[in-house]
């Protein structure tokens, strides 16, 4: 059951008018042009007890990703592969709009878009997560925790996910004589093999304009958004229109163009974050 949401009354039409006037000149508040993402900080290893973790600050938006791994059984139809699950929670401390409870459609959408962006292109090397193929595999959880919501949760979540995965180390383990796998939590073992770096770039359509990385106010006045998942070679590896409006073919083409450009900024930040 999906219900038309209340439009946050943050942005009455007067605000939108003023905003459009600014966009017309090629600018957004805070001296940002239409194609540039907000200030981006990625910090990894912030949860020492997790196998991998990252805190992403995209403007005032903050998202934590934590990676946990355990031994489990493979899925019936992919016996020789590990299991990767992405889960997102919009905890109520992140926004006055969030309420406690199980993930709503927005949190589920973010988690599933991140998940598909990784999965379809084989970004995480699932076969290498098999320990005893057909029997025991690594079950890897990526938990996304939005802690401050100022718009564009898709990109912040995707970046946090990638940074956490790229710096994750599975727990070391031993095989007992009886064949049981004993995890040595706290002792880092193998990294998780990542085949392809992925990012999403979210663009929003506001009036006739396209902007990259909308903040919360921009989301509120936007007609619709497009989330484009890209690899570092500029291939499109996923896409999700989100929001209530429609898009023309021309909008879409422009949005992809902007997204490919902005993805370079994101990839650069990712690269820097894991070097540290």
């Amino acid at each position, binding site marked *: 059951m*999906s219900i038309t949401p209340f439009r946050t009354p943050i942005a009455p039409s007067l605000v939108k008018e003023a905003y459009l006037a600014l966009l017309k000149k090629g600018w957004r508040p805070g001296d940002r042009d239409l194609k540039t993402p907000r200030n981006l900080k990625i910090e990894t290893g912030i949860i020492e007890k997790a196998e991998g973790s990252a805190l992403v600050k995209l403007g005032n938006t903050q998202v934590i990703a934590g990676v946990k791994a355990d031994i489990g059984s493979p899925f019936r139809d992919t016996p020789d592969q590990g299991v990767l699950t992405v889960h997102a929670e919009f905890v109520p401390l992140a926004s006055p709009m969030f309420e406690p409870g199980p993930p709503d459609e927005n949190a589920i*959408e973010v988690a599933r878009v991140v998940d598909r962006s990784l999965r379809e292109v084989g970004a995480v090397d699932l076969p290498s997560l098999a320990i005893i193929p057909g029997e025991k595999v690594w079950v890897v959880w990526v938990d996304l925790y939005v802690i401050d919501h100022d718009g564009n949760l898709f990109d912040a979540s995707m970046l946090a996910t990638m940074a956490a995965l790229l710096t994750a180390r599975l727990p070391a383990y031993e095989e007992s004589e009886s064949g049981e796998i004993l995890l040595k939590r706290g002792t880092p073992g193998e990294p998780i093999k990542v085949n392809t770096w992925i990012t999403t770039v979210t663009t929003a359509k506001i009036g006739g304009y396209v902007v990259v990385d909308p903040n919360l106010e921009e989301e509120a006045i936007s007609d619709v958004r497009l989330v484009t998942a890209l*690899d570092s070679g500029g291939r499109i590896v996923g896409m999700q*229109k989100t929001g209530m409006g429609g*898009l023309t073919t021309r909008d879409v083409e422009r949005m*992809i163009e902007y997204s490919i450009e902005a993805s370079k900024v994101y990839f650069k930040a990712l690269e820097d974050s894991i070097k540290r």
Partner: protein
Amino acid sequence: MGGKPPEGVRLIGEDGRRHDGRLPHELRPIHMEVGVLNNADGSAIVQYGRTRVLAAVYGPREPHQKFPLLPDRAALRVRYHMAPFSTEDRKSPAPSRREIELSKVVRESLEPIVIAEEFPRTVIDVFLEVLQADGGTRTASVTAASLALADAGIPMKALVGSVAIGKVEGVLVVDVDELEDMYGEADMPVAAAPDLGEITLLQLNGVLSREEFSTALEMALESIKTIVDMEKDVLRKTYTSVEGGEQ
């Protein structure tokens, strides 16, 4: 997606035809019918090959359960739901994460076409039941919803139609079925209102180059035009014959 198809199945044959004999740009046989339910204010059944979706529209009405109504328009409530017997393995009737996401995505594909402003403080319910799933359940759902809304007399800017483009053994194909979805390289569901020139649903699962994407989008919009023409046809025939009968 990914993996190899079952033995003996060729996704694209040497004659360029797909496993079920279709050419890349061919839709599956499509069947549409409106007014199939008695209680609903509007209803439709839509089949894309073996995929079968039933849609019902109730409203504008006041909801049973209290929830915050919108002061300036009707709220659209959309439920995409799969019957337990619609899938290979029985589907648990509790709503899955996939169904929750698809309910949102389908709702957002209808928002741009429904003139909701005419009915403030009410709800328009669109209930979609997938009776049989063989690929393209969300696209058939959008088409069925469009017809059921029209059948319910809900004012709309335009009709919407939907189809998924796939990439199968490197070839872009129209209206992927379950097998092509499972073993293909990409699946891109698109919904659009051709009379408005607006794309209202756009998803991509899988990998496409920049150029492939543009071609795929064009193919989708072309097929959607065909589908919306079929919708118009069905509505015209239904209402003409009803009116005829009433004379």
